[in-house]
């Protein structure tokens, strides 16, 4: 993921019997062989299950019985699409994305820029910001649950001690969203931070030098050099973050159980609840397909938008 490719030495043209651009037959075969393990895994664990899922979604398949069960046509789909609970869950996943994506991108960028400008202890800051990301979700949820616990938790106690009204972090919908957003921020922002840190190191130092000679202060350098130079990284971070946030499950499941009264249940938990807990595998598969289509549409739209913008700036 290089932001400024021009700073890298261009690969020297290879000398050989074969013409440039078209690798030799044996090399092509080696390439195919080397990628074969990946393709096999991709087929067996991604394409295969996806196709099985498509088939299942047309049957009343259950996890307590052998085989596919009876064929039910499109009725699983019509039930999914007609279930307000499903659309509530979809909205919760989208809401979570809206709540978490902007701070996760902006804060990560800000922290990465600041950490890169620190003179001493740069490694410490980088480590400190990234460290929470490697903690498993179950442990993060356990720790935060203790801090949020009503009556006895650290955060409600602090609110009470300074005389503020104590929000019901796990028991109310708004409190639940606040709790899960804050926890996710602390926990996952390290990943975007690392992407930005890597991109910042790719910004050539002579640009800063030139700016400094022209009398640009640190703030102007950040605004007019660092941030624009990070543009490509930002769009990558943004799409990665949107897709990751749409796939939310563990934080909400572990911290709130999708509650109170399913008011924060994300769509993946809906699929889990119907497909596994209620044994309705076929129905769960249909819900997954609807969700899958939505994700693909969002990614495709984003990709198209980026390409159009890229061609426009190139023109």
């Amino acid at each position, binding site marked *: 993921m290089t932001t400024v490719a021009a700073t890298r030495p261009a690969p020297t043209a290879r000398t050989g019997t074969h013409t440039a651009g078209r690798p030799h037959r*044996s090399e092509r075969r080696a390439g195919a062989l080397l990628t074969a393990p990946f393709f096999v895994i991709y087929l067996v664990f991604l394409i295969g299950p996806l196709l099985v899922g498509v088939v299942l979604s047309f049957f*009343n398949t*259950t*996890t*307590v*019985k*052998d085989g596919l*069960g009876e064929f*039910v046509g499109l*009725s699983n789909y019509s*039930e999914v699409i007609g*279930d307000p*609970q499903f659309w509530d869950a979809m909205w919760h996943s989208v809401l979570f994305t809206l709540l978490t994506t902007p701070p996760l991108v902006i804060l990560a960028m800000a922290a990465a820029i600041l950490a890169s400008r620190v003179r001493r202890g740069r490694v410490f800051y980088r480590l400190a910001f990234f460290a929470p990301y490697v903690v498993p979700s179950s442990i993060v949820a356990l720790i935060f*649950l*203790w801090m949020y*616990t*009503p*009556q*006895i*938790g650290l955060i409600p106690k602090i609110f009470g001690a300074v005389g503020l009204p104590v929000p*019901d972090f*796990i*028991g*109310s919908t708004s409190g639940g969203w606040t709790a899960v957003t804050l926890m996710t921020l602390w926990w996952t922002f390290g990943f975007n931070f690392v992407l930005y840190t890597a991109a910042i190191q790719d910004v050539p130092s002579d640009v800063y030098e030139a700016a400094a000679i022209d009398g640009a202060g640190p703030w102007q350098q950040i605004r007019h050099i660092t941030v624009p130079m990070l543009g490509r990284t930002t769009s990558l971070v943004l799409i990665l973050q949107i897709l990751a946030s749409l796939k939310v499950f563990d934080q909400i499941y572990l*911290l*709130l*159980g*999708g*509650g*109170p*009264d*399913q008011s924060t249940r994300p769509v993946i938990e809906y699929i889990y*609840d*119907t497909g*596994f*807990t*209620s*044994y*309705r*595998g076929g*129905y769960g598969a249909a819900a997954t397909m609807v969700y899958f289509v939505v994700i693909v549409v969002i990614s495709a739209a984003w990709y198209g938008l980026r390409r159009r913008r890229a061609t426009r700036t190139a023109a």
Partner: protein
Amino acid sequence: MSGAMARRRLLALGGGLALTGGLAACSSPLASGLTGSQPNTADVIFWNLFTGGDGANMVAMEDRFRKAHPDTSVEATVLGWGNPYYTKLALATASGTPPDVGVAHLSRLPLLAASGLLEPIEQTGLGELGVTADKFTPAAWRKATVDGTVYAVPLDTHPFVLYYNVDLARRAGLLDSGGSLVRLEGADDFIAAVKAMKTAGGAQYGAVMSITADPSTAWRCFSMIYSGLAGPVVTDSGTTIALDDEAVQETVAFLQRLTGGGLMPGNLNGSGANALFSTGKAGFLFDGEWQIPSYRQVKGLRFDVVPFPALLGPKPVAYADSHALVVPRNTARSDTRTRNAALFIKGLLDNSAVWAEGGHIPAWLPTQRGRAFLDLSPQRHYVQAAFDAQYDPEAWYTGAGSDFQNVVGGTITEALAGRITPKGAAPALRADLERFTTARPPVTMK
């Protein structure tokens, strides 16, 4: 060219090695797993879902069986509680490689039986070993029966019970001359007792219960009180809603008398309830008896456990579930293996006093009436709850860890927190139930 040859030969050699390795491993569980045959690594293969204190007790019972039957080997596998366990049990049975003995919640039995996953107990030879209806808590045995056929051997009954802090109760004047909780009768009596814990006893709260983010506990509490007034919330194997709106209103109004007046916090979660009761800041605790071992470890906490008194109805009701032993159906199982399985189940029943240390009431009457169990306190104080047990309604979607408990309990949680009025509770519950009664059942039930 010769380089390519050498590489090819090396690859062939590697492949050959891998193949011989695979063949040699044919007798291993891994290979038999890949070929889909049952790995008969022991005479009895036993699956359960117990970890923690229950897990340790179960291991002790297995060890006792091994000691008594040195010729019969037992291999026990512990799987994750709830869905992970039931999914694996169902899929293993459906694909013809089930364990010989498994554990199941009786509340989950209707669906497992309707799916044809279980061997009727009559055909396992347990009857010849003396395992018969008259030796079990009647309520548990009834729940183990689906459509006239018994599919499970109940191991215990684990009810929702009333914990109380002995020191606070004494100060509140709630103890009789024998040092146990006075007889409470009816809602007013009960609320007065909770109030006394707070005012005279000096507790921060009269009672606590895990409410926030804990819909199952909310459902257990609601179901217990509601069942004193009306029958199951759904009937006809879960296809018809039979909700009694007045009973719902009365039940929720009662619960809100507790949470609305500051007697009981309406927004407390499991760890909060645990902390408040452990530190003597709450007089009563509403919870399952399975929490007893964890409170036993609290230094300086003196508590006792009793069944809930009759609250709204004329008779006390105990919301309960049971762990039971099942023999998953396997057409390829030999008679010898079935006999061993029966022997093992009998062995667990005989040793179920060990099991009772986890708080559970043994369903096997010879143990329940035996010295070893009657020496256990507070376990012996709430045995009656097993006889007043009220289980989840019979349907494909109910039971321990089910989405049903999650959804319906979610609404009760809202009511306990005061966000739903007693009048508004019945329509909300009806909407919840409709989601299940109108959904296409994964299996047809009678």
